[in-house]
């Protein structure tokens, strides 16, 4: 989802008997729900996979600030503007918690940023879609943050301590995000015909990309099986997607708008909503870099980083000078 396709470097899942003694002890601790901490021994593949997963997640938070940031100056009221700024600032905070969690695994912040800018590591496909109207800000909070929460709550129990703790902090902040989005949708749907049409149009454009956030069907993915064994992925993509659909459809009913899916219907026997086929070619295409905003998003991040270089350098120079001044004073 925020980390949609994480390569675990594994080609087949191994049983305890096939593992080295160290690995076996590691897996047994995970099976017993003992958290792995930064300085504990861990298999290289576990470390590498986590770095990829956590940094995809962190990049998603940071790049995710862009589509909503686009509307801060044009929010319809001062109240909405203050709320949106707080929401976008939270996302920046989430990125920072997650970068810090990734750094406990022995990568530097600069390396992580460089991986993003060089295109070596992805962020969630969802942030490559444009925010065309104010209703999109509502739809993002409601659907995108809603989908994020669905994925992040189980991660609070993941095996890696620093990641789990970051997720706890993030989850506490996310429910405000989802509610403020739904609140925007409510206002639009209770407004004029034009306003309600904006809400419906936003739902039409964000619904399918939101379902893609959970990643491709993972029934036959070896990476998912490995991540599940390591407890860094606790529920399957399809399970989470179904939960999201089940929770969201009644919310749309309440708004009086409809999902753009002719096949969507309640299945009393399954106790779930059935929904139409997802266009995975669109998802793959966005991941490859050909979504509506991929180039724009990355360019905005690189520009922000480059434009900030002089600030980072000046701060280091200032700190060095102050440290030197203090040193000189101590001598006298």
């Amino acid at each position, binding site marked *: 989802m925020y980390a949609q396709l994480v390569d675990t470097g594994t080609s087949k899942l191994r049983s305890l008997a096939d593992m080295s003694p160290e690995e076996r002890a590691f897996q047994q601790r995970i099976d017993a729900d003992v958290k792995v*901490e930064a*300085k*504990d*021994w861990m298999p290289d593949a576990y470390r590498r996979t986590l770095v990829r997963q956590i940094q995809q997640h962190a990049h998603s938070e940071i790049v995710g600030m862009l589509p909503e940031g686009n509307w801060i100056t044009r929010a319809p009221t001062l109240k909405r503007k203050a709320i949106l700024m*707080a929401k976008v*600032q*939270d996302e920046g*905070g989430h990125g*920072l*918690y997650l970068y*810090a969690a990734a*750094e406990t695994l022995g990568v*530097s*912040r*600069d390396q992580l940023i460089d991986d993003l800018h060089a295109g070596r590591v992805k962020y969630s496909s969802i942030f490559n879609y444009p925010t065309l109207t104010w209703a999109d800000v509502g739809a993002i909070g409601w659907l995108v943050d809603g989908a994020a929460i669905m994925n992040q709550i189980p991660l609070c129990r993941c095996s890696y301590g620093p990641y789990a*703790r*970051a997720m706890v*902090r993030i989850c506490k*902040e996310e429910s405000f995000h989802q509610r403020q989005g739904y609140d925007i949708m409510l206002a639009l749907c209770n407004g004029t015909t034009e306003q309600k049409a904006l809400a419906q149009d936003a739902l039409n454009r964000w619904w399918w990309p939101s379902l893609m956030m959970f990643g491709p069907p993972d029934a036959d993915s070896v990476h998912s099986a490995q991540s599940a064994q390591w407890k860094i992925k606790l529920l399957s993509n399809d399970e989470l997607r179904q939960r999201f659909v089940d929770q969201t459809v009644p919310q749309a009913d309440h708004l009086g708008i409809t999902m753009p899916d002719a096949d969507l219907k309640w299945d009393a026997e399954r106790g779930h909503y059935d929904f139409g086929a997802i266009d995975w070619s669109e998802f793959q295409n966005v991941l490859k870099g050909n979504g509506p905003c991929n180039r724009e998003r990355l360019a905005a991040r690189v520009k922000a980083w480059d434009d900030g*270089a002089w600030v*980072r*350098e000046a*701060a*280091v120079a*200032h*700190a060095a000078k*102050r*440290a030197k001044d203090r040193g000189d004073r101590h001598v006298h």
Partner: protein
Amino acid sequence: MSTEWPLWEVFIRSQHGLAHKHVGSLHASDAEMAVKNARDVYTRRSEGVSIWVARSSDITASSPGDREALFEPANTKVYRHPTFYPMPDGVKHL
């Protein structure tokens, strides 16, 4: 020139009189900036009334390999806990 700012560990004391608690880490060029950044990153919802920051490189931690040597001795000393002592029925305030 690499300008990656050093890493700081952040500790926050909440309003309820509890001790400072480790909440995470962040980058800052000096201590003053670390406190300001900690305010923005870790106390956006009045989570604290006091912030400590310490450079991560200044922290000495016990190593996982020493776990047994450090903590095992306490395991056999169950008599340090009040539940070790059975109290007869009817005896109160003890």
